[in-house]
Every structure is written in C-alpha cells, then in structure tokens.
C-alpha cells in the first residue's frame, strides 16, 4: 500500500461548499439522531477542513476501517436494526462523515454530494411540513452549486454557479409540477416506510395514571383538524371519543382495542341530527381513530367500532390521515346490555382507597336512586373546595384517597378517576373515556376549521344506568365548567389561564399561530393529501372530466414532450454559434477548391504564396481573392470589396 501523502490544498476551493451542502442536508435529521452521530459528523467535517488548510495527512486506512466498523455496530446497537428511516439515515450520516476522512479528490466529493441529495430526500420520509418545500429547494440549490463548483472549467464564480443551478431548477419546475399533478395516484401505496419507533409521538397513551394528561396539556401540538360540513356543534357536545378504559388497579386505568374486527354499531341508537365533518389526524403510531361522540359513519379503511363505541384501525396511524365522518351527539348505547353480571365495569382492587369507598357507600345510602347519588357526587366536586389545576401535587399509594381528602387539586384525569372509583364502589358500571374535548375554531378568510390540540386532551366517565344505557358524566365540568364551555384554548387565552399556571400567550402571537396553522392545514389537505380523490377533483377543475390513469399518463407524456421541446428551444436560442461572415465562408470555399489546407497560424497572404510556390495554380486570381478577402474580413465595411470577392471566388470555381 502506498504511503499516504499529505493533502496539497487543491480541494480548498470546493471542499467548503461540499461541506456546506452536506451540513445543510444533515440539519433536519439532527433532532432524531443520537447525539454522538451529530458530534462525530461535526468533528469529521472540522477535521477535514483543518487537514486541507494545514496540508496534513488524512488518517490511515486501518483507522478508517476501524471507525467504520465501530460506527456500524454503534448504529446497530442503538436501533437494533439497520433498515428503516432512523437507522438508515443515521448510518448514511456517519458514513458520510467517515467518507470525509478519505476524500482526496473531486471524485470523492461527488460521492459526498450524492449522499447529500439522498439525505435531503430521506428527511421527507420522516415528516413533510410546509417548510419542507423551501428546505428541499434550498438544499438542492446548495448541492447543485457545490456540484457545479467542481466542474473542471476555469474557476467560475460561486455567484455564477448559483445562478446556473437556479436556472436548472427553474427549467425542471414545470416538469415537476406536471408530473406531480398528473402522475396517477394510488389509494394505497405500493410500499411504506416503517415507522421510526425511536421517535416518541406525543398523544394519548393507552392507559391513564394521574399526571398523564396534565403533562400532555402543556403541548401545543396539533392532534387533529376538523372541517365541519355545516354547523359547528356547541362546545358542550365537542367530545372527541378516543380510547375507553375499564380496568383499574388502584392507580392506573387500562383498556384495550380488543374488539377490532367486530362492528358494534348495532348497540347504539342514533338520535338527533347527524353532523358531518372531515378529520385530518396527525400520526400517533396508535390504532385509535378519533371521532365526535358517537360516530355513525367513517371513511377510513379497516376501521371498526369496538365494544365501547371507540374506533380503531387495524394498522397503526403512522401517517397523517384524512377521513370523513358522520356523528350523532345524541344517542343511547347498550340499553339492553346484559354483560354486566360479571365485574367487568364494576371491579375495583380488593384493597386500597378505603376512605373513598367508605365515602361513596355512605353517600349512596343517604339517597334512594343512583341518579341522585351521581348528582350528589358532582355537587360535592362543585361545592366543596376542589380545584382544577395543571400542576397537581404528587400522589402516593392510595392516589384516589389522597386526591379526594388531602390534595383536592387535580386535572380532568384525577376527577374522572375519583368519580369512577366512587361509582364502582357502590356497584354502578363505570368506564373512563380518553379523548379530546373542545377545539379552537380558526377562521382564515372563507376557510374555517377547528384545531384540536394535545392540550385539549381530556378524560371523562360513562356510567351505565338501567334503561338509559351508557350515560356520559363529566366530573370536570362540575369542577371547572369553563373548561368545557370555552375549551382549553379559550380558557387559556381568557384570563383563566393564569390561574391554572399557564403563561398566557399574547393575542397577536396566537393569531399568527392560527394563520400559520391554517396554511399548514391547506398544505396538508392539498399538497400532502393529494391522493386519488384530490387528483380527480383538481383535474375536473382543470377541465379534464373523468380522468383515468391512461388519459393522465398520455397527458403527462404530452406535457413532458412539449416542455422538453420548449426548454431545448430555449437552450438552442441561448447558444450562439460564433458568427461566420460571408467573407470567411467564401474564402473557405476558395480554399476547398484549391485543395490545400492552410497551416495553423498561416496568414492568407502566406498561404497564397505557398500555393503559388507549389505550382498548383499560378493563377493571379489567387492573389486577387486573397487581397479582397483581407479587405472584406479585416477592413472596414466595404460592399464593393465583398462584391468583388464573391465574383472572384465564383469565377475561380468556374475556372477550376
């Protein structure tokens, strides 16, 4: 193996740009990467620049091999896998970093730039936000600029390279647009990227312990957006049903989507007017599908209503999904249920929370009916000193006891849990529903939709009453009625927030946030959600009725052909062939006729002399043509000379 030579600084001009392009494409991956990979990348990049500046040597081969193996196993150890977006991009980035350490020449930098393009695209596999488009464009521009900077021509300036790459992108833009609009969309993709499970998604969990939802309530992230077809229901009806919990171990409520595959809609009697709307659900990596309590129809595949009127999809929701639904906010369910013989909805752990149980039993004995008992409990929450707060104190071994008799401060989950325990203590079937309550209406011009955020997460209870079926009882409404009537977002803004420990956002900032969200919503709907349905709609708008894939492909091919012709035309126009004037054309003809090629650097006069010396033709016309040619080509504009030259060359041709 040849001994490693020191670098000679030839890459100093192109390397910074290659590094810029690479860094830019790594940027969106950083939040998802283990810190050591980002660190290693930064170190390798800095080291490589230092090596080039100081004309040092690059590390020896065995070091590089060792580092590569180490990194590979490092990635494998963290992700326990090497396929998928997470480990894939991590591996790509660490290998790009190591490639930097063996970048000797232009060719190696091409590899790096190729990786850079790949990384830019890989970031789209994770998330596609509104800013992904500018990122994509800028990233591609930087990479192309770096790429052009390495082309072997004389050092074109960065500005020129940048302009060239912008122009190239511009040429490509109409093609991209046409392909994006017209390429036939499929309702289910051929392939799917495995969900990056290393990435914690915020959202409701499948169980509930004290503190779970209140921590969620600090998140401003959007859970889903709703577009109501007609009227927006009043806030008190805005219960977005999610998961139903019925097992209690003294601290944690759990439930399961065990009824997947069975449609239990026949257990529900739908009353009142239907409400139609469309939900765009952000990915949760869970099965739960949210809908207004209680849904009648939904346009999402492989999704069924479970035993507890909750919707669940067979596959977890790993991508943003949009579906239409119809709900009835007035309904009765499981009126004639007989499964309550067992302790399914009445069970409590043998021990624990004894004071709560005792209290419930005493209160039940004081009244005659279950309805009265329920009202008494709610009145207790309302009239006694119970407080609604997002920062409740820590609860110990008997959390319900502690909450009811000591802390007396809590969030919806505490009240729901305490209420459910009290109900079960006297034998009333009770279950807890996790979901969202309320939502903020965002009016953006004509476009109006509802944003439901993680902070709208809510827990409420349902009790089963003879002849009435499951009845929704929301103990939080008894403690903090404004939470239900104004919604979380509204409550936050309107002064109440401060008392709950929120830092109230200024009105202006909030409005800006809403506008940005509206843009995002439209982006999601039309750009990211551009599926077969939107495509058909959009093509109808363009005047293409009844588009099938054959017609789309034909149109697409037609457009591509036209565009390529136009772009080629532009390029041909831009290319200016060096001007050949008539004089030199005539002279060339004359030279062809003589049949002797001029030598490089031979002036016409010397040529004439040489031709005559060779005795090929001792024609005085040669001198004449030569002199006329010199006059025409190098002298000032002279039409008579040109005429003479033309005539002389023609005569010469005839004579020959």
């Amino acid at each position, binding site marked *: 193996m040849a001994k490693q030579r020191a670098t000679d600084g030839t890459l100093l001009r192109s390397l910074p740009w290659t590094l810029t392009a690479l860094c830019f494409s790594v940027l969106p991956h950083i939040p998802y990467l283990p810190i050591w990979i980002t660190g290693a990348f930064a170190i390798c990049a800095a080291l490589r620049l230092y090596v080039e500046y100081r004309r040092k040597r690059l590390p020896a081969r065995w070091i590089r091999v060792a580092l590569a193996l180490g990194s590979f196993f490092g990635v494998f150890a963290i992700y326990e896998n090497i396929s998928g977006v997470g480990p894939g991009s991590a591996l790509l980035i660490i290998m790009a970093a190591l490639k930097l350490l063996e970048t000797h020449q232009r060719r190696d930098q091409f590899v790096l730039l190729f990786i850079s393009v790949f990384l830019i695209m890989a970031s789209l596999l994770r998330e596609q936000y509104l800013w992904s488009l500018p990122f994509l464009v800028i990233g591609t521009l930087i990479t192309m600029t770096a790429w052009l900077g390495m082309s072997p021509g004389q050092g074109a300036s960065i500005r020129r390279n940048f302009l060239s790459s912008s122009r190239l992108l511009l040429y490509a833009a109409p093609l991209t647009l046409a392909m994006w609009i017209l390429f036939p969309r499929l309702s289910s993709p051929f392939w799917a990227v495995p969900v990056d499970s290393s990435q914690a998604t915020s959202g409701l969990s499948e169980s509930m312990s004290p503190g779970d939802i209140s921590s969620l309530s600090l998140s401003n992230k959007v859970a889903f957006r709703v577009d109501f077809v007609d009227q927006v229901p009043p806030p008190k009806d805005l219960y977005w049903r999610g998961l139903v919990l019925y097992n209690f171990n003294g601290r944690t409520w759990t439930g399961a989507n065990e009824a997947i595959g069975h449609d239990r809609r026949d257990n529900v009697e739908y009353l009142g007017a239907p409400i139609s709307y469309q939900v765009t659900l952000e990915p949760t990596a869970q099965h739960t599908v949210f809908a207004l309590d209680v849904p009648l129809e939904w346009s999402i595949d492989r999704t069924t209503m479970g035993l507890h009127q909750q919707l669940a999809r067979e596959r977890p929701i790993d991508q943003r999904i949009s579906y239409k639904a119809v709900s009835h906010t007035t309904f009765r369910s499981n009126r004639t249920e007989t499964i309550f013989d067992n302790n399914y909805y009445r069970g409590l752990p043998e021990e624990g929370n004894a004071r709560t149980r005792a209290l419930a039993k005493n209160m039940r004995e004081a009244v005659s009916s279950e309805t009265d008992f329920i009202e008494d409990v709610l009145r207790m929450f309302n009239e006694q000193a119970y407080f609604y707060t997002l920062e409740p104190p820590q609860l110990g071994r008997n959390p319900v006891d502690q909450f009811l008799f000591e802390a007396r401060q809590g969030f919806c989950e505490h009240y729901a849990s305490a209420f459910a325990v009290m109900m079960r203590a006297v034998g009333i079937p009770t279950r807890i529903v996790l979901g969202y309550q309320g939502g903020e209406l965002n009016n953006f011009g004509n476009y109006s939709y509802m944003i439901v955020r993680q902070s709208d997460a809510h827990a409420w209870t349902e009790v089963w009453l003879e002849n009435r079926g499951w009845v929704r009882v929301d103990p939080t409404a008894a403690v903090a009625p404004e939470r239900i009537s104004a919604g979380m977002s509204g409550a936050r803004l309107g002064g109440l927030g401060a008392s709950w420990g929120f830092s109230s956002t200024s009105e202006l900032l909030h409005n800006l946030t809403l506008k940005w969200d509206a843009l995002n919503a439209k982006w999601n709907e039309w750009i990211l959600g551009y599926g077969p349905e939107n495509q058909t709609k959009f093509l109808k708008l363009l005047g293409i009725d009844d588009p099938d894939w054959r017609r789309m492909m034909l149109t697409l091919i037609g457009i591509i052909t036209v565009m390529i012709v136009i772009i080629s035309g532009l390029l041909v126009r831009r290319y200016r062939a060096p001007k050949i004037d008539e004089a*030199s054309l005539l002279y060339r003809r004359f030279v062809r006729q003589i049949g002797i090629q001029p*030598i*490089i*650097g*031979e*002036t*016409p*006069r*010397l040529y004439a002399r040489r031709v005559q010396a060779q005795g090929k033709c001792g024609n005085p016309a040669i001198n004449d043509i030569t002199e006329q040619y*010199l*006059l025409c*080509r*190098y*002298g*000032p504009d*002279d039409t008579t000379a040109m005429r003479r030259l033309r005539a002389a060359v023609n005569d010469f041709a005839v004579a020959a």
Partner: protein
Amino acid sequence: MQRSSTLESLSAGVDSLQGAVDGARNALNSIILGKPREIDLALACLLARGHLLIEDLPGLGKTILAQALAKILGLSYQRIQFTSDLLPADIVGVSIFRQETGEFEFKPGPIFSQLVLADEVNRATPKAQSALLEAMEEQQVSSDGHTYELPQPYFVVATQNPSDQIGTFPLPESQLDRFLMRVELGYPDEQYERELITGTDRRQLLDEVGAKLTADSLVILQSAASIMHLGDPLVDYIQALIRFTRESPEFETGLSPRGSQALAAAAKAYAFVQKHAGVFPDDVQAVFAAVAGHRLKPNIDSSYRSPMEMSRHVLDNVAIP
C-alpha cells in the same frame, strides 16, 4: 460629433502625408541597406508613440539607423552615450545658480530633444538607466521640484549590446516593458555587405538626404495610425495569441494587458505604414516578435529560448480567425 469631424479632416490630410511616409521609408532604405522590415518596424514603433530598443552586437548600424530616423523624419536629435560613470544629471540636465539673477536656472540635458538615441543603454548603472526610462514613461522630467515637459513627438531609440558581454547592466524585465518594440538588426546580406564596402560612407550619404517629414505632420500621422480599423476577427486573433502565451507551459509569464495593448497599437501602426485598409493578420504577425519577444519569459525547461523562437512558437500554434 466633434470628434468624428476632427477625424474626417485628419484622414483627408493623412492621404497626402502617407505619400510622405513612403518617401521617408525609401530614404531610410537607401541608407540602411537590406533591412526594410526593421525600418518598417521602427517607423511603426514611432507612429504608435512607442519607444524602440535595438539589440545587437556593435557595428551593425544601430547608431546610423537612429541618426537616419531623426534626420529623415525632421526631428531634433541628441545622442547620449551611456557609460558606467554616467549620472542621471548628465541625462536630464542640472540646475545652475545664476549670480546675476540670484536664482537657479535649469540647464536641460540631452534628453530634451524629439529623438533621443540612448546608445549602449546597458553600459550605464541602473540609476542612470532609470532616469531615462522614467522620462520615457512620464513624457516629462522633474528636477528640483519643477516639472519640465518633453518635446513632442518624443521618441527614444535605445541600443543595447547582448547582455552576455562583460561590463554591462542588463535592463530588468520591468524596464524592458517600457519599450514598445525590441528589434535585432543582424548581419546584412552579402549583396548589401558588398555595397557597404564599395559604396560611399553612410554618414556622408546621410548628410546629403534632407528631411522628408516634419515633427507636426508626425503627430498627425500618429493620430491617424491610432484609428486604424481593427476588426472583430482581429481582436479575436490578438486575444487568442495573448491567451496562448498565458496558458502555454512553455512560458513562465504570458503577456500582460499592457502587452496586449502594445500588440494592438503596434499592429495598427504597422498596418498604417503598409497602407492596409485595416489591420491584417500579417501586420500582427510582423510586429509580434518585436512586441512580444522581450515580454515573454521562457520556462526553465522550455526548448524555445530566444525571443524569435518563442514568437514563432506562438504564431505557429494559434489559428487565425
């Protein structure tokens, strides 16, 4: 408008003057035998407002050429013989204190004449050399805080013995650059040699010929030469030549922008002397060795050593557009 009408009146007078240029050429050729090319170059150099460096061995007629130029073109003439003890004051002149007026009076040196022959310029010390070269560049002389304009037209003909002779201070490249052209005279052909031996003495002959031009007409001719038509193809050709000298591995340094300007100016003046309708490739090729030869520096391992060889290499490798 103003300018173009001046040019028109200029070109009207030039036609008659061009005949005078021919007369001058013939007269020069009758004195310096067998060197028509060099004479044309010298004339072109003068018309392009440049200075001329003649480099050759002693006795090849350098001095007589300069003298003939001055005489025939009707210019005032001074000769400065450069020696190793020559001082700058010997060239530019000295200020002398006048007792009567109580003031210093500047006594102009030999440099104050229209044609200055700086003979054997490489025999003097660099200090004396630079006094001459500065005057050439600035067209004026500064002494004791006063600036004295040099007469117009102003033309320096410097002669130099090849620098490998003993006791010389070769001009550095930056100084060589001040000369528009550098020509070599070389030995005359046998035919002319014979004529030189048998014929009358050249100096005597020179006394007999009169001036064919005046200083004023020379200024007009200089203007006329500077507006010779230089077509686009020829600008391309000059640029291609310059580019070749910069990119060719044979040369350590290519031609500078000043070099390209010099090439264009010299080619125009040469075309004017040849009475061409515009600048032809032949004109560029004719002046190329004289203009570029002393500005090119061969690479250490280049096989082209002499100015002539280097120029030939360039001209033979650049296509004429």
